């Protein structure tokens, strides 16, 4: 059994868990509370679960690329905040409080570009200046929490934007960004496991010397993946905003922990883009199931049910803790010259 096979098994296991958990929870609760299951599992539920999973999936794919190559980008949350803010700012700059759909797309692109630039600075700190990855990542979060609302306050006189617009639905009542994300997941999988660059990414995180001696510049690979991770997190933030329609910068901002969940999602998905997407969907669906419970009047504390994904992560990490972390994550690679 080779590496991709074992990952496939992990992925299948995860999908199994997803379906299992949801089915059991839904069935048991609808039985206990005598609620028709079709009221619980609606098309809207599926749509919202997908939308919930989308930004997490994008950030998770970025994060797993970086970590596969040996760099732990714990700053995903911060980059998502920047992404969301930039999207809102651009939409506002282009179209005031009533931007067009074209403005939305432009804003998403701008957010990706801005995130890319910011991450480039971050990547230089991590790779060239060998910054501690955990701490620098946390710092990105702090900086995001500070500066995004600060700039928002300068732009709008409030840390939250006024209502802008959200992206129009496409076929089947789904956002085009959901479809785009599905494509991204597929491409990310093929790229990582089927192209030479994907091989390099994997080698950079497992044995950078081997890659170096094969004539590939390890740090160049890592620059690429780290910048990609920030761009994807920014993209995730942009998608979040494009679905929500306005920026909220109070408290922990509208991103509200999704970047952290993204990290958990790819660990859960064993560094496989498809697995990460499945994990994100699991979290999204759990969250939305919680909403359904409230709507149909199943009386369990929302606050407690909201903790379910976190508990699930703990159980799975501990019971199925064999997530194989790339061998040299966190270690800067030094070529002698």
């Amino acid at each position, binding site marked *: 059994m080779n590496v991709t096979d074992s990952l496939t098994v992990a992925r299948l296991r995860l999908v199994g868990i997803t379906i299992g958990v949801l089915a059991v929870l839904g069935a048991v609760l609808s039985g206990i509370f005598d609620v028709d299951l079709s009221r619980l599992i609606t098309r809207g539920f599926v749509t919202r679960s997908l939308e919930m999973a989308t930004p997490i999936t994008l950030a998770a794919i970025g994060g797993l690329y970086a970590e596969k190559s040996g760099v732990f980008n714990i700053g995903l949350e911060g980059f998502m905040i920047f992404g969301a803010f930039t999207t809102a700012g651009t939409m506002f700059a282009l179209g005031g409080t009533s931007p067009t759909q074209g403005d939305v797309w432009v804003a998403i692109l701008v957010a990706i570009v801005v995130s890319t630039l910011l991450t480039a600075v971050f990547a230089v700190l991590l790779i060239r200046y060998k910054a501690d990855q955990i701490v620098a990542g946390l710092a990105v979060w702090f900086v995001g929490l500070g500066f995004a609302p600060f700039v928002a306050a300068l732009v709008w006189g409030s840390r939250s934007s006024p209502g802008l617009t959200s992206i129009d639905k496409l076929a089947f009542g789904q956002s085009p960004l959901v479809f785009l994300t599905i494509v991204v997941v597929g491409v990310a999988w093929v790229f990582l496991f089927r192209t030479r660059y994907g091989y390099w990414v994997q080698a950079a995180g497992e044995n950078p010397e081997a890659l170096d001696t094969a004539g590939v510049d390890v740090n160049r690979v890592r620059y690429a993946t780290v910048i990609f991770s920030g761009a994807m997190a920014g993209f995730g933030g942009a998608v979040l905003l494009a679905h929500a329609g306005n920026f909220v910068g109070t408290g922990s901002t509208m991103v509200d922990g999704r970047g952290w969940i993204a990290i958990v999602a790819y660990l859960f998905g064993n560094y496989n883009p498809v697995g990460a997407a499945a994990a994100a969907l699991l979290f999204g669906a759990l969250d939305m199931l919680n909403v359904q419970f409230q709507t149909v009047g199943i009386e369990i504390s929302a606050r407690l049910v909201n903790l379910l994904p976190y508990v699930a992560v703990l159980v799975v990490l*501990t019971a199925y803790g064999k997530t194989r972390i790339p061998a040299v994550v966190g270690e800067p690679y030094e070529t002698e010259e």
Partner: protein
Amino acid sequence: MSDSEAASNGGGVLDAVAARLLDASVLERIGIAVASTTLAILIGLVVAAATGYDPVQFASQLLVGAFGSERAIARTLRSTTLFVLTGVAVAIAFRAGVFNIGVQGQFVVGGFSTVVSIIWLAAFVPSGTVGGIVLMLSGTAAGVVTGGLYGALPGVMKAYGDANEIITTIMLNFIATGFVGWLVAGPFGDPEATATRTRRLPDNVELPQAVFGDPNLSIVGILLMLGVVALVAVITSRTRFGYDMVTSGYQDTAATYSGVDAKRMVISTMTFSGMVAGLTGALFVIMIQGYYTDPSGIGNYGFDAIAVSLLAANNPLGVLPAGLLFGGLESASSHVQINSDVPVQLIDGIVGLVVLFVAAPELFRMIAARTGLGGDAE
């Protein structure tokens, strides 16, 4: 005598070099901390100027807000107490090579269980000073134990389930905030209160004020902070446990070779770290809050503590000045809010930048090498 002569030939030079390097590294760490802070504040001032505020006024308000009056100093010391204690909690774990990102959660459950246990016990203990002392001691013990257990949990999961502690502690932070929030709003909520909070601690649970007359700052708190710092410094440098712990942090294989049980070490480190976090929680509720409220509004001491610890190079003694810096910034941000129109998020951003720069000491080494400051880089 002949030995020392031999040493002075070949070894003497090396000796001097080694000693200089050793000194340099302590100086260098201090230098990096100072440089990071200065650079971050400079960037903050530039941002302030660029967005149309008066940077000089902003800077002076930072200073006045932190140390400009007795009230300011008291406020600074109050935050400093919490930052230092949580910083020590983080430093303990980091020293041992365990990334306890979960100090926030341990701080929350510790404080909450202090409140709950004191309120429960108050019915059995006479009122008055003696009763108050009994309540405070037992409440603090409850906080320490709960914090320790909550810290032990990810330790056990790491040791026996191979679960990455960075992830598990982050998850446990969310769970602590959510679950305690639920408890405060529901089962443990004060039925009389309109706000979301527990019942108040009885009146005899109060620490002597003694300093600056600030009702929320007690000399006991400051002494406790200094005591914990000293205790942890002694434990890490003078005890077998400390040696085991720090050795595990530097090189776990060597620690195992020397007879350290790696799994147990992870658990005891996390427990120790969690106990200090729990103690901080207890101090927070007894000295400052007086009841428990929704933990999502309690402040991010546990997260900022990571930065504090890092700024101090995870040295328990270094945590004192680092905590003072953060306490000062926190205190200043309160002052800036009241007395200026600069959006206070700027200070949050500056704190983020401090952390970012501290994470990249190499940056300053290169700057130093380029500019010829700070002597030769290694």
